[in-house]
């Protein structure tokens, strides 16, 4: 860890409280939200700041998540800094407007306290909600713990609002495991965060009057946003969004370095974070809080002389293809952990993407997919040990029984 430049205070916060504090310190102009478990504390905490007069933020209590994201989008296109939060069914209800937000190039920041989708109803953590929004044109970051979610929300404004990116971003924190668990979180001063995030810089656009003006709804410089676009031009705007995703790859890395210089904390290269991977023979590819459990397990395995490692995908969109190829090419076998299902597909979403990225390697590891932890099913070191045992086995035999397996499922 690098040396920290600024004074920091250690507070006992759960993940949701850390999110609310980070949003508050990032000087958000508008928060529009609707409460849903396990995101509720974020909204409760933020409304407390508003009630106490601790923030100047316009807080909009909407009647649904569809309205919450619509209000956030509307605020964002006026040039305001907008924040919202949701989970599970709430995120699903936002689905339509998620695409409108990314297509409108509105850099809304949203915390997603990842939770299973109904039916049957389940309030516990898995990645079904945000994985279902994989193609909505949002940047996706998944965190490991409460400290990282605090840091990532602050970074998210800088990433999303970069004029070359100008895309919305969702930061996923595992429901309950991170959202409700009290942890020691090092926090920055209000002033430090305000300076780091800075004022929102708007991209410049040319209006129908031929004027080059900041990209915002402004009565002095009127412009038409979100118009009907014919087949002759729609495609081109989608290609622009893809280019912005590519720019985000650099911006996420840049912000990760800049933040580390300030705080002493970094998360891999901002895209992927590795643990004991350099000399590893077998490794697990994972997203979210399970990483912490895996680190304990890898320490145990290393003591037993097993060369095990971890690769955590922090940024899922844009997908860090080159970084994954370079980090995983030397391994004999890898297990890809999916905390959501793609029903009828060939494995979970993380598996299909990672395997796809590794296909171009001349020599690639043997790859197994584990679906695990659905609906908050516990994933403890004893259960996860089986994954490494399987990997050791396949490196010896070269044989896989099933490419897609279910970990912790009652047979």
């Amino acid at each position, binding site marked *: 860890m690098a040396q920290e430049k600024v004074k920091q205070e250690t507070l006992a916060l759960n993940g949701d409280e850390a999110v609310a504090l980070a949003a508050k310190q990032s000087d958000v102009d508008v928060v529009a939200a609707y409460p849903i478990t396990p995101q509720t504390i974020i909204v409760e905490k933020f409304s407390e700041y508003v009630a106490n007069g601790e923030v100047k933020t316009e807080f909009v209590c909407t009647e649904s998540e569809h309205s919450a994201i619509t209000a956030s989008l509307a605020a964002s296109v006026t040039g305001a800094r907008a924040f919202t939060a949701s989970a599970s069914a709430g995120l699903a209800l936002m689905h339509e407007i998620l695409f409108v937000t990314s297509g409108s*190039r509105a850099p809304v920041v949203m915390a997603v306290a990842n939770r299973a989708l109904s039916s049957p109803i389940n309030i516990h953590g898995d990645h079904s909600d945000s994985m279902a929004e994989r193609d909505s044109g949002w940047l996706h970051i998944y965190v490991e713990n409460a400290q990282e979610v605090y840091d990532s929300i602050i970074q998210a404004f800088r990433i999303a609002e970069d004029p070359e990116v100008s895309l919305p971003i969702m930061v996923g924190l595992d429901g309950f495991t991170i959202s409700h668990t009290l942890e020691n979180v090092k926090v920055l001063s209000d002033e430090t965060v305000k300076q780091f995030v800075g004022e929102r810089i708007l991209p410049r*656009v*040319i209006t129908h009057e031929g004027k080059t003006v900041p990209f915002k709804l402004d009565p002095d410089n009127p412009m*038409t*946003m*979100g*118009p009907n*676009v014919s087949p002759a*031009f729609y495609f081109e705007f989608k290609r622009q969004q893809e280019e912005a995703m590519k720019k985000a790859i650099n911006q996420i890395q840049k912000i990760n370095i800049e933040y580390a210089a300030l705080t002493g904390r970094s998360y891999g290269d901002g895209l992927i974070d590795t643990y004991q991977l350099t000399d590893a023979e077998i490794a697990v590819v994972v997203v979210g809080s399970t990483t912490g459990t895996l680190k304990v397990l890898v320490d145990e395995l290393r003591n037993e002389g097993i060369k095990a490692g971890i690769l955590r995908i922090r940024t899922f969109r844009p997908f860090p293809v080159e970084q994954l190829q370079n980090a995983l090419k030397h391994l004999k076998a890898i297990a890809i952990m999916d905390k959501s299902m793609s029903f009828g597909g060939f494995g979970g979403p993380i598996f299909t993407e990672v395997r796809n990225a590794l296909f171009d390697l001349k020599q690639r590891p043997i790859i197994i997919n584990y679906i695990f932890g659905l609906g908050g099913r516990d994933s403890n070191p004893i259960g996860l040990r089986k994954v490494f045992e399987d990997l050791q086995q396949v490196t010896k035999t070269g044989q896989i029984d099933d490419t897609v397996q279910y970990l912790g499922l009652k047979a």
Partner: protein
Amino acid sequence: MSKQEKGWKDLTLAAISSKVSTDFLTGDWKVFMPVHNLEKCVSCLTCVMLCPEGAARWNSELGKVEFDLSFCKGCGICANECPTKAIVMKMPEKEE
């Protein structure tokens, strides 16, 4: 596509419109067009108030109702609501 059309790198962000909505002539969608009989018209302006496109307009200089066929979508509300039946919807004659 003509050669003058902009590619994805040159188009402005997020489909910010290069024209205002009235630059797009939506009147060519129609099948039927309103034909206005000034002898029957009593200038009650019912059509002006009810036209969803603002295509029926009162011309104060000439003192009569006019139809802007560039924006009339041919819905026929004006003809249906006209109290003196001064408006009838007709198929435009084909241009040879």
